């Protein structure tokens, strides 16, 4: 795999070398300089509205709720709307305000077994509003901030981010972003593993919905929560190489700390005893990604991506994808795509009844196992001049994909994206 990694990087270098242009002398630059722009003051006003809906359906037989065995059947209906407002002032600053609201409804068959009897609730909702604001000056420097919230009955997250981007002469752009997630995980344990109350005269009951209530003196007590924080620093450099080719490289550094397990994940040890998943209290991730997009002729685009990933839990992963949009007309394209993914196992993963009592950390979540996956499908993109049916609907995307893992998990997803202007 290391050879493949190096070969891919080598191919990138060769391609860039073959296509890059030479620098024109300064005299030519002066001769082609255009007249200074005239700036117009424009208050913030709605520029575009985006609506994205998707339906996801999954099957598998390695649920972490039941210790690495049992159904992984999941459905998820996701809907989001995003409003983008833009404006400018007389000094050449451009403003952009983006507000979003998302709503998901999911069902997970394995959730029923949070309660040992299989009587827990299998469905749930998630709501996630967001807001971001950015300013771009006339020199091509953009500064932005954003705030995000995500809430579901057992998980709440609040996030902040800030980003800075600067256009560099020669068609390059350097952007940096820092973000912080402050999450709260409600400690809903499998029914047979709920810790015994520390005070007397208290009875603990886990309802069919998975909620826990306390009798006696703790009648009104809430289910306790644990904190999980995620901090990310990202640097991306993108470059126009010529009229038909552009590339980028992105490096993320991610640090997580706090409660990184999930409380309703069971682990069965080799002696048959059952425990709650126990993972370390910190994790560091280092992914680096490369993109190369090439417009080949007048009808075909090659969108390629490669990522190398490593973390301190022992996972090393490679991701490679290629999408080939084919333009049937200038405003209608069909895009077949294929994505390959491979990872090594985390040192904390073992299948059902494999961990031993000597293991300090243990998980039977197959997201941490060694596997390969394939994801393939097709998308269509429609964006006629003047809008679809001469309406405000300026573009429409439909994309279907089928996903398979060597763990036998498989899924299908279909997404619809509409843009109104």
């Amino acid at each position: 795999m290391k050879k493949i990694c190096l070969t891919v990087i080598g191919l990138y270098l060769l391609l860039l070398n073959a296509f890059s242009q030479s620098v024109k002398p300064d005299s030519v630059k002066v001769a082609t300089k255009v007249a200074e722009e005239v700036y117009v003051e424009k208050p913030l006003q709605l520029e575009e509205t985006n609506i994205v809906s998707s339906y996801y359906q999954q099957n598998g037989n390695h649920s972490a709720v039941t210790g690495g065995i049992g159904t992984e059947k999941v459905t998820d209906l996701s809907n989001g709307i995003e409003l983008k407002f833009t404006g400018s002032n007389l000094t050449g600053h451009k403003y952009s305000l983006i507000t979003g609201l998302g709503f998901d409804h999911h069902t997970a068959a394995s959730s029923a077994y949070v309660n040992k009897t299989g009587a827990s609730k299998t469905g749930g909702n998630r709501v996630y509003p967001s807001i971001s604001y950015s300013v771009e000056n006339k020199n091509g420097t953009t500064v932005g901030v954003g705030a995000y919230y995500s809430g579901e009955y057992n998980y709440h997250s609040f996030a902040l981010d800030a980003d800075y981007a600067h256009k560099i002469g020669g068609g390059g752009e350097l952007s940096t972003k820092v973000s912080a997630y402050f999450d709260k995980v409600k400690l809903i344990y499998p029914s047979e593993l709920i810790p015994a109350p520390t005070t007397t005269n208290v009875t603990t009951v886990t309802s069919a919905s998975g909620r826990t209530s306390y009798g006696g003196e703790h009648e009104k007590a809430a289910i306790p929560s644990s904190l999980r924080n995620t901090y990310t620093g990202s640097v991306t450099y993108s470059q126009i190489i010529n009229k038909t080719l552009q590339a980028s490289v992105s490096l993320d550094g991610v640090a997580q700390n706090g409660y990184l397990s999930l409380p309703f994940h069971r682990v069965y040890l080799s002696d048959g005893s059952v425990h709650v998943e126990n993972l370390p209290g910190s994790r560091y991730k280092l992914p680096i990604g490369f993109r190369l997009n090439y417009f080949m002729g007048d009808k075909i685009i090659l969108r390629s991506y490669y990522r190398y990933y490593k973390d301190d839990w022992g996972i090393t992963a490679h991701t490679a994808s290629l999408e080939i949009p084919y333009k049937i007309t200038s405003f209608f394209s069909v895009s077949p795509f294929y994505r390959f993914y491979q990872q090594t196992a985390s040192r904390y993963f073992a299948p059902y009844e494999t961990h031993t009592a000597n293991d300090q950390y243990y998980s039977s979540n197959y997201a941490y196992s060694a596997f390969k996956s394939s994801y393939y499908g097709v998308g269509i993109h429609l964006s006629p001049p003047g809008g679809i049916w001469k309406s405000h609907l300026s573009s429409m995307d439909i994309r279907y994909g089928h996903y398979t893992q060597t763990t036998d998990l498989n899924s299908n997803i279909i997404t619809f994206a509409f843009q109104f202007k």
Partner: protein
Amino acid sequence: MKKNKMIRMISPVSFIMLLSSCVQVKNFQKNKLNDAEMGLSNRKVEKSELNFQSYREGASGANGGKTGGGCGCN
């Protein structure tokens, strides 16, 4: 083994240096670069699939998507 590690570290740096040696394409020559499908970021229609991949796989990040946090995933 050491040589491989060194190459792996040097290659991305070389990539960045090579990118920075390229030159500007004039605005009126960017009609193909400005095509909606030539963007160097994920499109909105890909957002949901990036989310499910980050739930089902151990790796995430360096793709403009989630790097962890915000949900009961990795």
